[in-house]
Structures are given as C-alpha cells and as structure tokens.
C-alpha cells in the first residue's frame, strides 16, 4: 500500500509537509465516497488512488459503490447525457420514480454515516434525500454548462440540498446554480499501476501478448466506448494516416464500466467499423487489459489520440502526456488545459486535421520526443495527485475543519 512518503522523490519534501499541515486540521474525519462503479472511467480512477492516500494522512476514508439494475443504469446514462447537453433526452415519470427508488434502496444498504459524505456524479445524487448527519458534498465530474433544461429542472433541487458542490472547472457550473462550490481539477497518480514507470521488457511483453508489432508506428486512444469519446473518429483518422504511413497500427483501449449500458453497443459498433483490419486492436478488460496493460500500451504509442466530442477533463490525456507521448486531440472539456498546441501535442478542429497532425508526428520522431518531454513537464507542474490531495483536504477543512477542537 502506498503512503504519502512515497511521493517525496516526485514532488519534494516541502509539498508533502504542506499536505501534512492541512491534514492536521481534519485528522480523524470519517469520509464516505459513493459512486456507481468500481471500475472504468475517471471517477473510479481517482478514488482508487485518493482513498488509500487519504487514509495514509489521518482521514478515515471509505468507498461505497451503489447498486442498481440495468434499467437504472440506462436511466442514469440518459441523465448523464442530458446534463452534458443532449436536448432530446426525456425523463418519463416512470424513469424518474425508478431512479429515486433505486437510490432509496441504496440509502438503506450503504454506510452513509460519516463526518463528510461525498456523492459522485448524477447516479447517486438523490441519496441526499436520505441524509441523516454529517456534511454532504456533490462531486460533479461532467460538463454541465448547458444542461438539458427539463432534466436539470428535475435534479436541481437535489443539488441544492448539498452543503457544497465540487466541479471540475468553473465553466462547467450551470449558470443558474447558486450554491457554495469548489473547483477541483482531476489529477493523476504517478505511482499507480496505470502510471508508474515500466521496464522495456514489460512493455514488449504486453505488446506481444496483444499481437502488436513494436517495430511499426502505433497510434491509439484510451477511452470508454461511448459516442462522446468518438472511437469511430479514431478509426477514420487511422485510415487516413494509413494511406501515407505504411504499417501504422491503431489501439483502441477501453474498460466496460458497470454503470455504462451503452458501452457494449459502442464496442460492437467500433468492432464493425474496424472491419476485421488486423492492424486495428480493439482491447478491453475482457481481453485481460488491466491497469498495467493500459500503462504498457500507452507507453508504446508513437502518438496518442483523444478525439472526444464532449469531455469532462480528459485524464487519459494527462496519462499519455505523463508517459512522454505527444497527443493529438480535439478542444473538448479540459483538453486545452493539457494539450498545448505545438508544445505538448496538436489541438485539432476536425478528423482531417487530426490525421495530418498525426502523420507529422509519426514522420518526425524528434518532434514527437520534444512534445513528449514538454508534456511530461506540464503534467508534473500542474496535474499530479498531490495537488488534488491538497484541494481535497481544503474541502474537508471547509466543512469540518478542526474537527477535534
């Protein structure tokens, strides 16, 4: 189990001392995090690292995962899409009733007795109706700048019952939201299985396992199979690049999150679109791709793609940059904070441009290396988990500071 001291060589002793200073203010606080999946997606990724770290500095952090049937997750996926701006979504009274009912059942089963209860994303949002004690936080990881008006109207009352809301970026907050809020950028854990340094032998071993040729250029996107992540766009880019760069290979790597009913459908669509091209590798957890494998495959990339149409923050971009891989990406969500055009990668407006920029990087390894070094430095300066941990501690200080005083 990692502890805070393990991060000293990466971020320095001073930063760790500041973390310990902040932690003293909330020592012993019991914090319960609730989300809807243990695997897949940025939220599970963050919690996996954050919770052991929080425990190593004196908090008592617990992670609860809500349960629901497939109908519930269809509803919550629709809500997710609606809050991200899909105007065609309609929540029928029956859907809404089921959404509330599943939350009611979970409220009975889950441990919600903490000094601080952090509810992640819309799936468990109505749990606040069953709040008994403690301070409650809604952590919203999605872009709600232009939510579907009808759905937002139904859910807004729940959000306003929380003591605090936490958003990824200020521009993601709905214009009419008036509650207390904090901003917390997501960050990556440099010591997790997904990001820790790997030997060349390990990388080669993984490539061999998935029949990827290490001697030919590899481009790839790590993302859920989801319309917003645009996996079909990645295939289009690959096909265009292939005309100019012989032997290029495409990796599309995703994990099936338990709370994402559309994943299977989009996985199939992606496979259909790949049309059994031997140089397209569509890999998921069902193929044995875990964190270490994602790490190795990301490190093997000549160029990483992130062609999302909508994006929360884009932690997979952060991961690629940390590994010194240049990124060609759209300007969605938090991507422009990370991909700085002509410095850490290329920002593109369309798939044609993405293909052109990918070719440039494949053909000029010196440029790709330079971008890679810049990307690593940018993440080190701005997006490592120790920063997230400090903001996390400030959130607790805000709610239950000097708990023992």
């Amino acid at each position, binding site marked *: 189990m990692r502890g805070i001291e393990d991060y000293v060589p990466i971020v320095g002793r001073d930063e760790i001392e500041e973390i310990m*200073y902040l932690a003293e*203010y909330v020592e012993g606080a019991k914090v319960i995090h609730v989300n809807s999946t243990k695997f897949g997606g940025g939220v599970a990724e963050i919690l996996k690292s954050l919770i052991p770290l929080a425990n190593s500095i004196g908090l008592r952090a617990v992670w609860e995962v809500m349960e629901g049937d497939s109908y519930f997750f269809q509803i919550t996926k629709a809500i997710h899409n609606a809050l991200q701006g899909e105007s065609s979504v309609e929540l029928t009274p029956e859907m809404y009733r089921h959404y509330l009912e599943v939350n009611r059942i979970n409220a009975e089963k889950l441990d919600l007795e903490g000094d601080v209860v952090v509810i992640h994303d819309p799936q468990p949002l109505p749990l606040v109706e069953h709040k008994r004690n403690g301070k409650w936080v809604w952590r919203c990881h999605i872009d709600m700048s232009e939510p579907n008006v009808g759905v937002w109207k139904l859910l807004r009352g729940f959000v306003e019952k929380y003591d605090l809301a936490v958003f990824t970026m200020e521009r993601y907050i709905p214009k009419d939201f008036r509650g207390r809020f904090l901003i917390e950028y997501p960050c990556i854990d440099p010591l997790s299985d997904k990001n820790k340094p790997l030997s060349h032998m390990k990388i080669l071993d993984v490539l061999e396992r998935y029949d990827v040729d290490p001697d030919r250029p590899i481009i790839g996107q790590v993302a859920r199979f989801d319309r917003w992540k645009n996996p079909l766009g990645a295939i289009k880019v690959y096909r265009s690049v292939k005309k100019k760069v012989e032997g290029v290979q495409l990796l599309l790597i995703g994990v099936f999150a338990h709370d994402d009913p559309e994943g299977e459908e989009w996985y199939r669509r992606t496979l259909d679109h790949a049309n059994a091209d031997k140089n397209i590798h569509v890999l998921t957890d069902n193929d044995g791709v875990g964190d270490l494998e994602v790490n190795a495959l990301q490190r093997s990339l000549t160029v990483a793609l992130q062609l999302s149409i909508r994006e929360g923050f884009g932690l997979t971009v952060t991961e690629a940059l940390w590994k010194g891989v240049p990124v060609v990406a759209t300007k969605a969500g938090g991507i422009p904070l990370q991909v700085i*055009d*002509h410095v850490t990668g290329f920002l593109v407006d369309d798939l044609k441009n993405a293909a052109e920029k990918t070719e440039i990087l494949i053909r000029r390894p010196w440029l790709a290396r330079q971008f890679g070094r810049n990307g690593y430095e940018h993440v080190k300066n701005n997006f490592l988990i120790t920063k997230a941990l*400090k*903001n996390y501690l400030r959130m607790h*200080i805000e709610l239950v500071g000097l708990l023992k005083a």
Partner: protein
Amino acid sequence: MLLASSLISSKLHVYWDDPVLLVLNVIAGTGKCSPYRLPVVGSGLKVRGVITGRRLLEVLLGRRGTALREKLGMRGVLRKSVGLFCDEAHNVFSEKTPIQAVAQFMVENNIGSVFVVDETLTFKGVIDETAFLTKMKKRKYDIGVRDIMQTDVYTVSPQVDIFSAAQAMLDNRVRRLPVVINDEVVGILTITDILKHILTEEKHIPAVLEDSELALDESVEEIMIRDVAKVGSETDIGAAANQMLEEDVSSLVVVKDEKLEGIISRIDLISGLARISGIDALTELVKR
C-alpha cells in the same frame, strides 16, 4: 524563439504561511487595477497555489472557512495561513516555454495569467494580460469592441446595499458589476473595491480585527467608482487596449449614449483577437 521568461510582467507573490489578513492588504492595495490574483509560494519560492480577491471576499462574508470560523471566529480565521484557503495552481509553466504556448493556453482556457518557474520549479514571475496588451495597444486591427464584448452583463442599482451586491457577484461568479439607473451607467463596483472598503472604512475594522459582525449595509453608490472607464462599441480593440493600460483598469464598460451595451475585460481583448485573427496574429504581435 521568444520564451516565457521574456514576458514576465510581475513578480509579486505572497507566502503560503502568510496570514489571510496580510494577503487581504496586498490584494486590496493601491491602484485601480490591483493584483486580483496572486501566486502563493512556499519555502524556496516553490509555487504552491493561487489566491484571488473573490476567495478573500468569500472568507469575509462567511461563505468560505465556515467550519474554522465556528471554532476560531473571524479574527482567528484571518490570522490563519493563506495556504488553507488558496487554490492549487494549474497554470505553471517553465521559463523556457515558447511564448506562443503561453498565449495559446491563456486564450483557449480564458485564463488571465500564468506562473513562470525555472527548472527547479522556483517561482520567477507572472505573465498576465498586460504583456499582450502592451504590444496590442499601438496598432489597429479593424476589430471593433462590439465583436468581442460580453453582452450578458450582470448589473446593480446604486441603492442596493453592498452586502447584497457582494453576494450577487459571488453567486453569479463575476468580479465586477456596472452600476446602472435605467440602463444608464453611473458607476462600477468591483470585488477589489469592496475589499478596500472593508479594510479602510472605520466601522468595518472591528469585523476584521475583532469578531463583530460585518454589516456592509451602506449603499453601492457610497463606494462605487463614478469615473467609469467607458468605451464605444465601434472602438478598435487596439485603442481599447491602450485605454485599459492608460487608465489602469481591468475592464471597460461598453456604452452607447451612456446606456450599457456590454463589458470587455483584458482577457476578452486578447482572446477576441486570437479568435478572430488566429492565435498566430497574437504571437506575431508579441514577437515584434
């Protein structure tokens, strides 16, 4: 290639363990365009965060630091380290970063400043909009203020009490409110004005130094700036940049026959130029 280090416009910073009250004095300092946003550094001048006027106003109005205030009172909170209240900085760049990258980062994300560090992550200075406006001001762009101004502007009436105006600014997440009577602009109120007022008005000092309640019940017209920096919507953005620098203000109110049409901030000018003429136009400008 022009590097970030060549565009540093300020080295002002506060320390992580500085008390909030001291930081309040720095941010509510002199000049119409006070340092609304300050880097917070730790030992060895390592960048540790960012503190803004808004955060300080939140603390003073009891919207931030609530748990600590219950235990320590306002007096105790204001004597605590600013490190408890600042935000992490996610805008830190090496001094060797090309200036085009800094410009791109600022305009793509609408972020008004970046913090520059050396290879040991030691703070070297801040690049803010001033660096770009200084280069912009001497030219004509054939881009009118109307093309890039914000038209969805929150306003306040002069009779409203300062407390309500401050709450409105925090609720709507803006740092300035034009003061209007029937759409006619009669003044402007900024977060910095409110902070200055709290620090200097005798009746509010007990709230800061002791634990008495901060009332802020006087009206906006008592503290608003009457000499508002205004501009017509036809004005070229080069002239607007010049005016902002000359008048040392962070925004211009756009008016037609004294009626409010919009507002334009420093970052709006830079982002607007990049949006209409392309990021290269901005970076070419800086190279000159």
